[in-house]
Every structure is written in C-alpha cells, then in structure tokens.
C-alpha cells in the first residue's frame, strides 16, 4: 500500500504540535516544511491560480499558527490544516468569480456512456513510459481539465487521501454526492490518461 500524507511518525508530530502550541516557532516551521507542498498543491488545484495558491498557502499557515491553541488533537494535524486550506481556497474562488468559480453544487450530466469510450489496456508500468517531470505534467493537466464539481472531490479523496465523510463535510456535500462525483472524476481521468498510457501497437482488444 502506498503510504499517505500524515501517516508517518504520529507521535513525533504530536510532540511538534505541542511544542508549537507553547509558541515554539521552530517546531511550527518544521510542520510547515512537512506539509507546505501538499497545502500548496491543494490550493493550486482548487483555485486554479498560482498567485491565489501562494496567498492560500500563507494564509493557511498563519491562521493555523494563530489558532493553534484551538487544535485539540481530535483529528490529525494535517486534516485540520487541509480544512483551513480548503476554506481559504473556496473563498478565493468565490471572490474571483471567473469560470473557475462555478458553484460546487452545479448540476452535472449523470450519463456514464460518455465516460467509457476509450477502452484499451495500459502499458503495465505507465510510470516508466515517460520522465517524472512529464508524468507530473500529464497528471496535473488531466486534473486541471476536470470541472470544479469533480476536481475538488477527487483532489481531497484521491490526492490528499481524506475520507468520504471528511470530504463531504469540507465541501458541504452529501455523502452520496461525494461518491458519485468521485466515480465520475476517476472515470474521466482514466479516459484522459488512456490516451497517454495505452499499450502501443496493439488493437483495442489486444489483451484477449
């Protein structure tokens, strides 16, 4: 199993949080070093704007530092940070009122037919077919192309690895809505990635 964010050395982390709660800026900076990449990526995915993402990163950690005494340790520190970052990112989205600010409650087409057009086996090791940089670019672009209603759910569930319940609460959606959006997001991404990763030189049913 691939180890997710925040699953390493929980004891160590509790000690860092306790030190930071006493005002230890060094301990808090260590927490920044651990999680800033993930928070920055999350903010970029939700806001779709690099400048907004920089602001969200800064605001998230500043708010976390200010409110650190309120952190009770009932959830993981990382989940608590994500909660702040999602709220800050959604606020940016609402302020911008661009295409990206489409409501997360926007109705969407529920038809599955269009999601399963590309049926082709993949190369057994897609990660070996291109460089790490190229791979990251392909994955980022595919996520960016998702409509916001699917993107936020996918980012929280499959990239940041939050639970269905946490995702529902953060995005103010019902659990069935999270589940159906995640299914459509996964199928859309699968479809997009198939164009890059399908096994070369074989017919559609080359595996038969």
């Amino acid at each position, binding site marked *: 199993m*691939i180890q*997710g964010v925040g699953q390493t050395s929980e004891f160590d982390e509790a000690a860092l949080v306790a030190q930071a709660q006493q*005002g230890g*800026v060094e301990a*808090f*900076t260590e927490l*920044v070093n651990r999680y*800033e*990449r*993930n928070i*920055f*990526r999350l903010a970029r995915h939700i806001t779709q704007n690099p400048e907004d993402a*920089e602001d969200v*990163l*800064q605001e998230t*950690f*500043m708010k976390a*530092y*200010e409110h650190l005494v309120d952190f009770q340790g009932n959830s993981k520190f990382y989940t608590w940070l994500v909660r702040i970052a999602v709220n800050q990112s959604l606020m940016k989205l609402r302020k911008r009122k661009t295409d990206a600010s489409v409501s997360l409650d926007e109705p969407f087409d529920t038809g*599955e037919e269009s999601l*399963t057009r590309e*049926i*082709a*086996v*993949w190369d057994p090791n*897609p*990660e070996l077919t291109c460089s*790490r940089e190229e*791979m*990251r670019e392909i*994955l980022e672009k595919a*996520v960016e192309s998702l409509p916001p209603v699917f993107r936020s759910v*996918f980012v929280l569930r*499959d*990239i940041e*690895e939050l639970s269905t319940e946490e995702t529902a609460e953060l995005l103010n959606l019902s659990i069935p809505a999270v*589940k159906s959006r*995640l*299914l459509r997001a*996964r*199928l859309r*991404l*699968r479809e997009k*990635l*198939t164009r890059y*990763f399908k096994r070369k030189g074989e017919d559609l*049913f080359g*595996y*038969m």
Partner: protein
Amino acid sequence: MVTCKDFLSELNEYLDDECREEVRKELENHLSECPNCWVICDTTKKTVEIYRGMEAYPVPPAVHDRLVNALRKKCEQPRS
C-alpha cells in the same frame, strides 16, 4: 445477474474494498466474463494508484521564505 452498468455503479466500492463479500463475488464473476469492464476496472485502479504516488512540486523558495518570515514576525509579537 450483474450488467456492465451495475458494475460501473459499484466500481468505486469495489476498488476501495468497501463492498459486501457477496457483492464482491458477483462483481468478480462479471469481471471474469466482460473484457471491457475488466479494462475499465484495471485502468481506473491504475489511475488512482498513479495519483496517490504523485509527488507535489516543491514550493518556490521565495514563497517559502515569505511564509517563514511572516511567522517569525508574528512570533515576536506578544500574544493577545
């Protein structure tokens, strides 16, 4: 009898190992008979695995420094 449509609607529960044992067996029966669903299932599983293994871009050093400096400044202020 599980149809392709049924399979697709249960795909996430199947991949996330959240379905009941008897449902899992029925889905696996369908998978063994339906090459299209097998491909969709396999490639969706790989999609999720690839994203879970994706590394985040580093935060630009200037952005990191701005944050750390702001925190230090904040720390120097007396707490209310």
